[in-house]
């Protein structure tokens, strides 16, 4: 291996790692606030890419139908919940939030979809559509089980992953898609060719992480989420609604995943079922951080990206084997350094 190839692999690894880092952050965030191990995050990544690819064709993407469908289900669940709590007068408001807003987003996307829509607007529409799915998913699948054990929530996650993969096949078809890069330029730096796309991906990831940092450090909502993550009961006692915190967390997490999807689209062909492996690589990163530390999770994800890049060079057939076997030494290390805890 010469320096050129080495530099190329490092660049590849960092680019992929930056995307996994976004996912790892989303996973740590969701786990911290809701205790959900969010396996289906990968489907959101795939939806991101496939939505953008659909918009590229100038047609309304499958996400529009999916969003409208989930909004309808959430609406029915809200009506049922309001009636069984004897709060029928709250129905209009809840319907507006859970069905009206998502349907409006879907309608705007449907109306905007045309071959003339500029690229940046396509990205915004993609982010809006996929992000809107996040809180709906929380409402439908997780909120009724908010008090359940981590194990039950994990099984729900896997079930949701199954359902969303199948729905992805239905709404997007079996064809794979790639999206265009933001830039196909590259430049020489110290004898090494660096693509602008890679730089943009890394910059976007770092930028998003900075925004999140400010959100959690400087805003009341961010602090409320952190409080919920630390102590659910305590947060509830001082007036932070766990349902609202959960929904809000899923907004943020879905946004991170949708953005990952937009970033990953130019790098690899994405199919309706590609997300699973992507999200699990995010998980390997997040587990390195013990599912609690954001910086460690991001660093872990970067490490996963690098291992993957070098593995695909040396033993491409065994790339996945190597990346997923990586979890074993990581778990061994964590198991030897963490105290034994009892799960209640």
């Amino acid at each position, binding site marked *: 291996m010469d320096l050129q190839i080495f530099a190329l692999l490092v660049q590849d690894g960092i680019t992929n790692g930056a995307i996994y880092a976004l996912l790892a952050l989303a996973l740590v965030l969701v786990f911290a606030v809701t205790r959900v191990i969010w396996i289906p995050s990968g489907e959101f990544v795939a939806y991101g890419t496939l939505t953008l690819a659909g918009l590229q064709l100038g047609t309304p993407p499958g996400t529009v139908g999916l969003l409208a469908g989930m909004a309808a289900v959430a609406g029915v669940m809200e009506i049922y919940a309001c009636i069984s709590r004897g709060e029928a007068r709250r129905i209009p408001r809840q319907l507006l939030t859970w069905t009206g807003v998502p349907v409006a987003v879907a309608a705007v996307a449907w109306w905007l979809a045309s071959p003339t829509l500029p690229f940046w607007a396509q990205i915004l529409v993609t982010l809006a559509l996929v992000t809107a799915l996040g809180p709906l998913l929380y409402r439908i699948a997780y909120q009724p089980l908010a008090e359940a054990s981590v194990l039950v929530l*994990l*099984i*729900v996650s896997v079930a*949701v992953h199954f359902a969303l993969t199948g729905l992805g096949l239905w709404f997007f078809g079996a064809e794979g898609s790639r999206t265009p890069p933001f830039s196909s330029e590259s430049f020489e730096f110290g004898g090494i060719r660096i693509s602008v796309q890679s730089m943009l991906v890394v910059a976007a990831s770092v930028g998003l992480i900075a925004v999140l940092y400010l959100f959690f450090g400087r805003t009341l909502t961010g602090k409320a989420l952190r409080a919920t993550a630390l102590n659910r009961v305590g947060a509830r006692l001082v007036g932070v609604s766990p349902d609202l915190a959960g929904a809000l967390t899923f907004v943020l997490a879905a946004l991170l995943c949708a953005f990952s999807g937009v970033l990953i689209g130019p790098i690899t062909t994405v199919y309706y079922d590609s997300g699973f492996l992507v999200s699990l690589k995010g998980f390997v990163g997040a*587990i390195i951080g013990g599912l609690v530390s954001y910086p460690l999770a991001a660093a872990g994800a970067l490490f996963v990206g690098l291992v993957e890049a070098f593995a695909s060079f040396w033993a491409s*057939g065994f790339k996945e084997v190597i990346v997923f*076997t990586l979890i074993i030494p990581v778990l061994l290390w964590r198991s030897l350094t963490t105290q034994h805890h009892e799960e209640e």
Partner: protein
Amino acid sequence: MSAGYRPPFGAWGYLAFIAVLAGVPLVAPQFWVTLGNYVGLYSIVALGLVLLTGVAGQTSFGQAAFVGIGAYTTAVLSTQYAVSPWINLAVGLALTLALALFLGFITLRMKGHYLPLATIAWGISLYFLFGNLDFLGGHTGLTGIPALTLLGAELRNERHFYFLIWGITLVALWSTNNLLDSRPGRAIRALRGQAEMAEAFGVDTARLNIVVFVYAALLACISGWLYAHLQRFVNPTPFGINQGIEYLFMAVVGGAGSVWGAVIGATLITLAKQVLQDVLPTLLGKSGNFEIVVFGVLMVLVLQRAREGVWPWLARLLPARAPPPVQAAPPLPVRARTAPAGVLLEVARARKQFGGLVAVNDLSFVIHPGEILGLIGPNGAGKSTMFNLISGALPLTAGAVTFRGESIGGRKPFEIARRGIGRTFQHVRLIPQMTVLNNVALGAYLRGTSGVVRAALKFDRAEEARTRAEAARAIARVGLAAQTHDSAGSLPLGKQRIVEIARALAADPVLLLLDEPAAGLRFLEKQELAALLRQLRAEGMTILLVEHDMDFVMGVTDRLVVMDFGEKLAEGLPAEIQRNPVVLEAYLGGVA
């Protein structure tokens, strides 16, 4: 559901079930025999998950990988080295054992969610490994696996194979059911959320977790071995992560609390998949595996609406059976006791700090054999922390605890239990679905020796009868004989506290630690409890009583140690303590 752990129907029910099973290959068309074979294979895997998930509270999405190890081991050895399939089964089981021990050791020491996450990772990793190794045939797989030979006959016909599959399935069901109704079974049922309690009665929960995981993995391996010789061909697809997830769905949909849930879940999911794969593409006008949407939604609904799965609904339709009576049996061996003199337990300058907070500050006291010592103090005085330092639930920061001349500070709870200290919990820790008898029998865990293998093969019956008789005696001793066969969760709180004492007594302790046993009791219940404690003392028991109900304590204790802010405020006879101005000030904020 306690019903799930008992055989749900009598001998006739079993015979009828077996007769129906045996009838299928004789009369049913080929299609149903094939389906029956798959249901059997899946049931074996799901059975392991019932034990792992429904009973022990762990889970695995990677069982399909263990199935793959069983299948590939025999495929490679029988096609390339012409080794007998029966030897291959042993090799496959050995490989699975080694892998499961390794993975279990790594993941089971940590919080519950690391194991399932790791299972997903290795499930994927093994799938790609199967698909990329040339000697395993890559993604095309291995063909030409020989048929099994059983008693000189080749099992080439699916109808013949059916008997082998279901024979093994029935043995697996039988042995798993035996296991659940035994000494290790009671401990396994405590693993889900009650590990701390189980440790206090001598269960090495870390080890038991691994044992359960290995048991489930071995079942999966057997299923894979059968699969390879039924299909006579293997490729990586049926051992991928999606199949692993479907196995878990089977256990959860069927009802992960009972061995029958495995069979029902395997049947339902197999049939549903068959039907959906036929119907959905026509219905939707697109081809694709859309059944996963239905399975996914179904799972979410089951977990939201009926977390116990289908089995409890079916169990209710079966006639209720009276619990088996407790047979008379010789008592379990009793611990040798020292003569009632000197000091039984000595606490010397015990200290516990949580960060900057000193919860117990250099506390010293002794307990003499045959006395009831009360440890009292206002809320937050550090009584329960001191209690946990003796029982081993918390490690000492400094100081020493000596029991019968041996230092026990820093030992694990199950090691301390082994030395003859029994305890109750401030917040009742019973397994609510289990009967009072079984809960109390768990207390006698250390007095038995039956392990998983003996229990599964039913070689433990003599000891089990003695344990049950011992538990029944402990229950009678505390006056709850009428509730012996009720589920513990159905009793009122006061009675549950008494069950806790019975469970501690079943351990044959020398020293009994009671953590606020009178909390939440009504006046009459307190009087009964006091009478019980006096009776135990008369029988020679030594008791440490942590309590803040003054009236109760004054009536039953021989001596008192008063704590406040982690320090010893006073020590003496109850009558002296009642007049002690320092104690009165601590309790009442100054002499009124």
